[in-house]
């Protein structure tokens, strides 16, 4: 019975994504190719003092992104530290240094890892004038980096410009994120997501006791949180909280929001490189991975392994009755395979292998479909590697969309692919190799015992390095080691890949090409491309992470 209802839900999800994604992808392609600025955009250009027509090479494009990110961290840190002076702070004190540092990086990098409990830490002003701002900006940065890479691949003349980073950021906010978030916020409001400045209200219940009803401008934040694949909850329980995600409809709607821009960007890519088949091939590879990994997670949760799970009769610990096991698993998989990190159920209480799938979703590199923009550029790096491998096999100079993949390009692609695993494994290794840190983590941070406790730390570094933000929430991350360590991992996990992608984009943009025809090479719009990229992803991920998974979730799940 539940299985049938769930299948209908998935069908609805597909229909919604196609119906909304089709026009959106066209609109996004228009947004990044038109010369025409809106009136409000011209006003902003004047206020900023920029020439909207000036093209930037990749170092300048990158400089803009780094500058606004560094300033974003400083401003957000300052805002948190001055919270006691801000209006609507619910009487909360300044956010402590460690949390403020971690949170500033976390929201600027689109991670939205939360080492704090929002109800007791963040007032409304910090949330709406600090955190939500970065929800918009970090999403915009992910998208424009992907757009810059597309432009590099699409360029024909050898002119090295990638566009103008300021114009791209502004258009992403004015034409895509703000209008969509606005509509989404109203829809969420209608389902019961709250939007007020009421603070905590105490009411007298029918049993003669009292109950607390929280308040807050939640709908406006929830909309961009899912749409921008950010994931930071207004409340501690995130999207499990009934005021963030009250109904079965809001649950599906939030899943649609998470997937919409990442999947749509594949068609935008096809349009912008002048060959829609290329976009379809990328989309097909992403869909194959999404279906494969999501099905596995749902199946593991439905099977309900674990001694406590078996005693309860189903994997309902940490799950809401309105979502049940299946709709929780769908949300959890979507959230981790995009780079959102929102949760509507507690991943720490997932079955051993269900929890492992959430980690594997991130370990894929969040490319199926991944975060807004980040998913597409991450996938294109994989495509470049796959094309290179194919080139080696057939003995021809590998090309992608007419661009040569030579030493310089494959170097940047390799550096990109090495960054995240290095951060995860180094962070994890240091945590357990430094005796004082290991002792503190074991005593203070880890909540569950045995391999599951190890999984909590593995999950944390995986989530931070991939800028996901979800957690095995039992872990106490607000410590002198984990706050700065995860902060550094989030920062490097975001900006090193962006450097490599923009360097790649610049390298492609400076190549003159005659067309996309790849005589004798690999046809990158055909099924063999899908097989090759999916195969590459699976092999790279498995080789990198199997040993460390064996110490945590595999040890627990196969015991």
């Amino acid at each position, binding site marked *: 019975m539940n299985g049938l209802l769930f299948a209908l839900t998935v069908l609805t999800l597909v229909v919604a994504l196609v119906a909304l994604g089709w026009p959106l992808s066209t609109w996004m392609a228009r947004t990044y190719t038109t010369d025409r600025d809106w009136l409000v955009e011209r006003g902003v250009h004047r206020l900023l003092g920029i020439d909207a027509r000036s093209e930037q090479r990749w170092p300048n494009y990158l400089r803009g992104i780094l500058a606004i990110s560094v300033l974003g961290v400083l401003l957000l840190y300052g805002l948190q530290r001055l919270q006691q002076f801000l209006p609507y702070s619910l009487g909360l004190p300044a956010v402590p240094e460690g949390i403020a540092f971690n949170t500033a990086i976390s929201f600027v990098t689109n991670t939205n890892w939360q080492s704090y409990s929002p109800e007791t830490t963040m007032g409304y002003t910090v949330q709406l004038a600090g955190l939500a701002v970065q929800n918009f900006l970090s999403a915009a940065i992910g998208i424009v980096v992907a757009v810059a890479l597309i432009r590099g691949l699409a360029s024909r003349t050898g002119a090295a410009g990638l566009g103008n980073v300021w114009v791209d950021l502004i258009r992403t906010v004015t034409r895509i994120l703000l209008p969509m978030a606005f509509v989404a916020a109203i829809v969420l409001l209608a389902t019961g997501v*709250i939007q007020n400045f009421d603070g905590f209200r105490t009411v007298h219940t029918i049993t003669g006791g009292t109950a607390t009803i929280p308040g807050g401008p939640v709908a406006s*934040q929830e909309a961009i949180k899912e749409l921008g694949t950010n994931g930071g909850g207004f409340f501690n329980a995130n999207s499990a909280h009934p005021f963030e995600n009250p109904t079965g409809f809001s649950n599906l709607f939030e899943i649609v929001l998470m997937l919409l821009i990442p999947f749509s960007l594949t068609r935008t890519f096809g349009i912008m490189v002048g060959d829609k088949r290329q976009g379809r091939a990328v989309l097909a590879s992403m869909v194959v991975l999404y279906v494969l990994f999501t099905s596995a997670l749902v199946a593991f949760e439905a099977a309900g392994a674990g001694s406590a799970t078996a005693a309860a009769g189903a994997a309902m610990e*940490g799950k809401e009755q309105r979502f049940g096991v299946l709709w929780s698993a769908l949300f959890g998989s979507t959230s981790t395979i995009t780079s959102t990190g929102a949760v509507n159920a507690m991943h720490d209480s997932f079955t051993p292998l269900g929890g492992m799938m959430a980690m594997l979703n991130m370990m894929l590199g969040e490319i199926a479909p991944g975060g807004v923009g980040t998913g597409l550029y991450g996938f294109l790096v994989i495509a470049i590697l796959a094309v290179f491998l194919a080139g080696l096999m057939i003995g021809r100079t590998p090309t992608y969309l007419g661009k040569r993949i030579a030493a310089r390009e494959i170097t940047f692609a390799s550096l990109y692919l090495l960054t995240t695993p290095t951060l995860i494994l180094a962070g994890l290794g240091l945590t357990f190799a430094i005796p004082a840190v290991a002792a503190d983590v074991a005593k203070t941070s880890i909540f569950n015992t045995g391999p599951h406790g190890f999984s909590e730390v593995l999950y944390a570094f995986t989530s931070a390095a991939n800028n996901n933000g979800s957690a095995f929430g039992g872990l106490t991350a607000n410590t002198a080691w984990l706050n700065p360590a995860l902060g550094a991992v989030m920062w490097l996990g975001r900006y090193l890949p962006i450097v490599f992608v923009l360097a790649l984009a610049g390298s492609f943009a400076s190549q003159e090409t005659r067309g996309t025809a790849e005589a004798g090479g690999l046809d990158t719009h055909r099924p063999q491309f899908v097989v090759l990229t999916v195969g590459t992803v699976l092999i790279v991920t498995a080789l990198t992470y199997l040993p460390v998974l064996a110490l945590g979730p595999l040890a627990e799940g196969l015991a």
Partner: protein
Amino acid sequence: MSSVLTRGPVRTWTVALRLLLLTTLATVVYTLVVTLIGQVVLPGQAHGSTVSVGGKVVGSALIGQSFTDAKGNALPQWFQSRPSAAGDGYDGGASSGSNLGPNSADLLKAIDERKAAIRESDGPGAIPADAVTASGSGLDPHISEAYALLQVDRVARARNLSAATVRALVERTVQAPDLGYLGQPTVNVLQLNIALAGLRA
């Protein structure tokens, strides 16, 4: 016109700061506009879908409550919510799951104790999973129909009502998921208990 290309890094920082402040302004305006629309068009939802009895707000239809005495003991005359890890249980200021793992000995022990308590109060029927597990938010307003039906005899006894009357009330209170298939059927415990208080023997 000046170009970002020609003026170099110093210029970049100025533009970045201005754009950051403008985005902050846009986000604040966005939040206030959504708030305004909420106040005018959807005030009920915007303020938390509150439920009133006799003109007084007694809770929210979306936020679960505990139906216990001051010491936390279940009151037999009310339908009971799921176990909760939010504060001391259903603390609206401290949403949280238990985060206990699937093989946790503590969780296993808690589940066994909850089962024993339910058997003692509600009899030997099959106990559904939602009755012995804490939700993700700790504020789950719902229980399954099976758990509600399991509690019917106890509630009816405590209130001197016929079991058939109470069972009929439960069956009337079951909510189908949105569109009939987006999620699981639910029973809203607060709404069920309010309706229960209005029943006459």
